[in-house]
């Protein structure tokens, strides 16, 4: 069963995942850019996989290419679920 998509639930999953990629937990916020967090395209491919596994929301390469900040990623997942 996929977890119900709420902004809070998505934020939690994203915030928990980013440190696994080496991001400094103290720097993670909605406004932080992936570039600042040193999160690159390979990390985002992994993040997409985690999100799909958790929420059954698929993110395609085109979507992922457009997002710049942690907040963008959360909003995108929430909008796709809607």
């Amino acid at each position, binding site marked *: 069963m996929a977890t119900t998509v709420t902004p809070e639930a998505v934020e939690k999953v994203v915030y928990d995942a980013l*440190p*696994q*990629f*080496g991001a400094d937990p103290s720097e993670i916020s909605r406004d932080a850019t992936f570039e600042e967090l*040193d999160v690159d395209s*390979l990390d985002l*491919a*992994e993040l997409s*996989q985690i999100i*799909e*596994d958790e929420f059954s929301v698929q993110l395609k390469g085109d979507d992922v290419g457009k997002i710049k900040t942690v907040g963008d990623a959360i909003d995108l997942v929430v909008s796709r679920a809607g």
Partner: protein
Amino acid sequence: MNREIVVTGVGAVTPLGVGARTLYERWRAGESGIQDGQGAATEFDPTEHLTVKQVRRADRFSQFAMVASDEALAEAGWKDEVPYDVERVATLIGTGIGGIGTLEVNHKKLLESGPKAVSPLSIPLLMGNSASAAVSMRHGLRGQSFATLSACAAGAHAIGTAARMIQTGDADAVVTGGSEAALTPLATAAFGALDALSDKGISRPFDAERDGFVMGEGAAVLVLEDGERARARGAKILARLAGYGASSDAYHLTAPEKEGGGAIAAMEHALEDAGYGPHDVVYVNAHGTSTPLNDRAETIAIKHVLGNDVPVSSLKSSIGHLLGAAGAVEAVATILAMRDRVAPPTLNYEHPDEGLDLDYVPNEARTLDINGKKAVALSNAFGFGGHNAVLCLEVA
């Protein structure tokens, strides 16, 4: 070889610990890195050397290579700045199998949870060139980089090919070596199915009771430089790579040619390339796997090329068989041993085998009495597929 090739830095991660000197000194002292029938690099903790991201982005065999390269570059004096145009510094790290641990973990995910569970990092981590890529990126080396893939000869092939890159003028320096991390369920089972592994879990090269090899893991990296440029920048020269010879048995996928023909050719080519004769060689670091076939064929080959008197020993008696890393790890140990004028021992040697009558330096290291001569050594590496690569190393 016309352009002189020198070694200015060495690094290693092995079952004897992290560090090239640790490897050599423990081997010389007769210590073993083999436990429970395996030579695992138990003292290696990647998080001590690499960031979270670097650890995630590298299979264990690439992690070994990165850490060994840090040591080698630091010794060469390259830590703060590479003393060459980085476009002219190549990277060449050999491996027998590559990231098989990554492959196995992700194949299990595929079977158990389906294709969506497979990590996007699978291919970039398991590909055989990933150690070369990791080392090149780590140090910003922008000359050519790729991997040699020739089973247990891969490390020696890498070093020999690296020397040729410098000699042909394609590079001024090369960061080279070999790496392997194949202590995995599939690789262990597969070598077991071939009946290549020691049932007793004992590595005893050349001994009458040898019954197969013991698997090990690790890496070694060397910095090779054009001798003239290295001297001009005041580098400390650890050794010269005086010669390199390689050949193929063209005989069998796993068994060596019984009369050692391919090995003989590679050893002779290496000597010829170095401009040395049989009597110049004071030590042979044997491939010495502890398999019945290799140790017999290699004995025949060494006898044919060098006669019966030269001291011969096998590092595999102490750390097991590091497969694609073996040739590089053994070259590093040989360089350090020649600097000390020491023949390190073949451990676990107790029972002479009929026809295997070389001086195997049993169980205790021996000082080489070479009366001020150069210490010239051969380091042999032979691989499944009939690949033979031999390095002639010289310490003044």
